[in-house]
């Protein structure tokens, strides 16, 4: 199986889908001549031309809305946000328009659009460039939210997102673009709404998505040295959520720790914890625990920033706590 970077997996997904369907186009800031702010679309302008790889001005509201209108009449736009932090300028377009078109029109119009780009914190980008906004979009009926954790998932899920008839918020990990991983030979897709056990275990379920999967896997390694066998579960898509996979895992382990890069209040982890409480109440040996970023805006200083984020060490400590070992 070939080993590729996360960004390359994303590029392969977009190129394959553009070759497959002439109605797919990519639009966003710096996606063409500059080859993408994170080089995800490198070489695509040369390959597909400026009719289909379109550099937009800095107008998130404008080009997000443009994509939505085009999708209403059957195009399949990929709209790139340089970061999901900038998507808030377009949130009215995504939430009040893309998500509601099908319902408001009585099912006459669909909105097959993919909004994609990096989310979450990178390194020292301070308060306005570091937020994880998946809970914002997952809150909205009509939207799907996809958060791949490795190159294999990135490619398979992006292809499914582009083919989906619904608006999809595809949130990439800003620090993951250079991550390498194996991807299957040939064409493949991964369905939305199907999670994956990234590491089998018996003692505690660690749930994480996007870059939190790697934090969870690293925590499991630490725990393994102490004789604790943690299971790491990646839902891969926040909405639709693979609730059955979560329930089966938690029923098996009897314990659950949720890792989330975002803020704690009304976060995705709160929703997952609620669902576990409804379906696994009698199976739990400890209340569901969450490890999130600190409930503050991101600070600039490197060490200070690192100290507010979930880490493998903090995650391992929390697992031990729910095992009454900490």
């Amino acid at each position, binding site marked *: 199986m070939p080993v590729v970077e996360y960004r390359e997996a994303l590029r392969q997904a977009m190129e394959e889908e553009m070759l497959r369907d002439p109605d797919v186009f990519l639009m966003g800031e710096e996606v063409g001549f500059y080859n993408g702010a994170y080089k995800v679309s490198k070489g695509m302008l040369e390959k597909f031309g400026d009719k289909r790889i379109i550099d937009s*001005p800095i107008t998130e509201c404008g*080009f997000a809305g443009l994509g939505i209108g085009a999708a209403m*009449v059957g195009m399949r736009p990929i709209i790139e946000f340089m970061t999901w932090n900038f998507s808030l300028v377009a949130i009215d*377009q995504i939430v009040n*328009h893309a998500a509601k078109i099908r319902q408001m029109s009585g099912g006459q*119009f669909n909105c097959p659009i993919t909004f994609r780009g990096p989310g979450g914190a990178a390194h020292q980008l301070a308060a306005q460039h570091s937020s994880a906004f998946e809970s914002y979009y997952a809150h909205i009926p009509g939207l799907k939210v996809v958060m791949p954790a490795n190159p294999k998932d990135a490619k398979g899920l992006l292809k499914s997102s582009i083919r989906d008839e619904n608006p999809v918020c595809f949130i990439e990990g800003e620090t993951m673009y250079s991550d390498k991983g194996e991807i299957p030979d040939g064409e493949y897709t991964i369905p939305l709404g199907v999670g994956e056990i990234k590491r089998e275990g018996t003692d505690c379920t660690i749930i994480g998505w996007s870059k939190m999967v790697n934090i969870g896997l690293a925590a499991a390694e630490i725990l393994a040295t102490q004789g604790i066998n943690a299971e790491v579960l990646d839902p891969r898509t926040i909405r639709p959520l693979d609730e059955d996979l979560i329930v089966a895992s938690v029923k098996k382990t009897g314990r659950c720790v949720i890792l989330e890069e975002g803020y704690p209040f009304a976060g995705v982890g709160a929703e997952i914890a609620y669902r576990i409480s409804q379906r696994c109440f009698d199976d739990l040996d400890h209340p569901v625990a969450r490890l999130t970023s600190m409930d503050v805006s991101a600070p600039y200083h490197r060490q200070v920033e690192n100290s507010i984020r979930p880490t493998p060490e903090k995650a391992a400590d929390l697992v031990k706590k729910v095992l009454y070992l900490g």
Partner: protein
Amino acid sequence: MTRIEGEALQAQEKLNLLKYYRQMLGIRRLEEAAAKAYSQQKIGGFLHLYIGQEAIAAGAVGATEHGDYFLTSYRDHGLAYAKGTSARACMAELFGKETGCSKGLGGSMHFFDKPNNFLGGWGIVGAHMPLAVGTAFASKYRGDGRVTLCFYGDGAVSQGAAHEAMSLASLWKLPIVFICENNMYSMGTPLSRTMSVEDASQKALAYGLERDRFEGNDVLLVRDRLAVAVKRAREESRPSVIEIRCYRYRGHSMSDPGLYRTKDEVEEYKRKDCLLIAERHLAGYGIGPEDLKAIDDEVKNEIEDAVTFADESGHLPAERLPDFNYVD
């Protein structure tokens, strides 16, 4: 032009005019019936009436082809009706019934009619304008020859989305006509208190768009002036901003008593009513009061039938709503 050709044109124009008059009267009676049904609490929520602005809808439809896309704000009944949505589907939508043009899910503000290329019916002021740029983008991308008409009120002129829309449409030379229906009040605030310039079409200048500006009471004038912009969009893929000055006789919505303007002002505009002007044109073609009465009777029957139809239709039960969240 030969005499015979001239006569054929005249005959065609007479038929056009009769069609426009019929459309405008249909909108007027539809809206009057809606106001009545609202007072009977058969229609709820917000209800924004188009009465006074009918010539714009009829003129725009007259200037375009059926395949052209129309998008507008929440004051949408008149445009949908002129574009081809039946009175029954309009009224049933207002009543929230499954037989409505959006299955009763959208209501007054969210009319959609795919077969007639009516793409909403949008409730966030100015925010539908980027979407209209998107339908125009799709048309240029595919070379399908369609033009997008994007209607908005003077209240939308100051919204950021409006400016991003104009900027992108001009940058990429898209086949779109932005039509500002300037009824002089953004809700209850006169234009002089919301805009730093008096001429809303001036907003086109910064983006390099073509522009035009005229009164919207004479349906033939509206049609002919819009046709210039539509032709420019279709044949040269060049966008325009058109400001059409108009006046709504009713309040912003049914809950608005209109205390911010005088009775005299409203009466003055009613003297320039689009139906009166069209009747004068029709008189020139020998269409008299008796012919007009026949049209009025026909429209009356159509609207009465629509109200009965809406009354007797059922609504979608809540259990069906999740079907409209996602396409499987």
